[in-house]
């Protein structure tokens, strides 16, 4: 089990990518015509949301791998991925609220289906950890958590579909699509997305290394007869 291998490369590239992304956001990307400077939140909020949602789905895929192989390491990976997506998800909700406040004067708007969907997804995943802690047998805990992760992972797209259908009118501004951005903005967005993905990967492998270390420590204590 290589602990922390590649963590250094990952960390350095994350810091570099973050620096480049921030530089592009504040010094390269043009000020958006309608929203002005406020639109800079877009480069933070949307990539984070995408990364976080991908993390949730990825956690579900890892859970499938866990159930298929019965390899506990997949469960650990799934756990860490979902854990990290939850943390970034909190940022997504907060930045979304700030953006909504700046843009519409309200901290929360129900007319923004992406944000609403995200809230529902977060409410669901908020029960992931309580579910784990409520099961004592470690093996069953892993299995039940995987069942949850798979179900919830499939729920993410399903939920987005339903919520989007339910928003009766088209919201005034595109808060999720980057399709018709002018090239400088698209570039900035892409770099931001890459930086956020790298950040996510770094934090995940950081957490994973920490978890593995603690597991190793525990089992070393046991082997040496101290516990």
């Amino acid at each position: 089990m290589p602990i922390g291998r590649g963590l250094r490369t990952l960390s350095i590239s994350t810091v570099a990518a973050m620096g480049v992304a921030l530089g592009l956001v504040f010094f390269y990307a043009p000020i958006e015509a309608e929203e002005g400077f406020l639109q800079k939140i877009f480069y933070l909020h949307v990539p984070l949301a995408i990364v976080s949602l991908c993390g949730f789905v990825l956690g579900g895929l890892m859970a499938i791998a866990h159930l298929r192989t019965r390899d506990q390491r997949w469960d650990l990976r799934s756990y860490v991925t979902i854990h990290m997506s939850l943390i970034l998800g909190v940022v997504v909700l907060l930045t979304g609220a700030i953006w909504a406040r700046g843009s519409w004067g309200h901290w929360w708007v129900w007319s923004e289906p992406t944000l609403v969907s995200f809230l529902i997804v977060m409410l669901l995943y908020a029960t992931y950890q309580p579910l784990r802690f409520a099961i004592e047998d470690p093996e069953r805990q892993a299995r039940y958590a995987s069942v949850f992760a798979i179900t919830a992972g499939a729920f993410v797209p399903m939920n987005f579909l339903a919520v989007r259908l339910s928003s009766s009118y088209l919201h005034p501004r595109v808060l999720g699509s980057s399709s018709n951005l002018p090239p400088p903005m698209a570039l900035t967005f892409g770099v931001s997305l890459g930086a956020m993905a790298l950040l996510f990967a770094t934090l995940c492998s950081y957490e994973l290394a920490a978890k593995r270390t603690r597991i190793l420590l525990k089992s070393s204590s046991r082997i040496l007869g101290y516990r």
Partner: protein
Amino acid sequence: MNSLAATLPQGTGSGYVAAAYIVFFAIVLIYVAIMAIRLSRVERDVRELHARAGQPPQQPPQPAARPGDVGEPQLAEQPQLGARPRRQDETHGQTPEPHTPVRERETV
């Protein structure tokens, strides 16, 4: 958040942008801080293990440590003997395996 937004210029929305980025970095930093606390706990446990590894092991299922590992004498001086007698109880006492999960059967 309200007061923070109020102190910054409203017209351009820069206050909100600053708030959003601050929130982002703050949460990442909080996470790093929590990990630092956990890391210090791991370090403490490793030190403890290291100190004990210097002692001749009681019932080593495997070689406990190399003799050269004794370092950190200030820690090794105070061996936590608390766990040792308990281990003896476990193996020779009335109940050889006190942690056996009666639970397992009940919950299955």
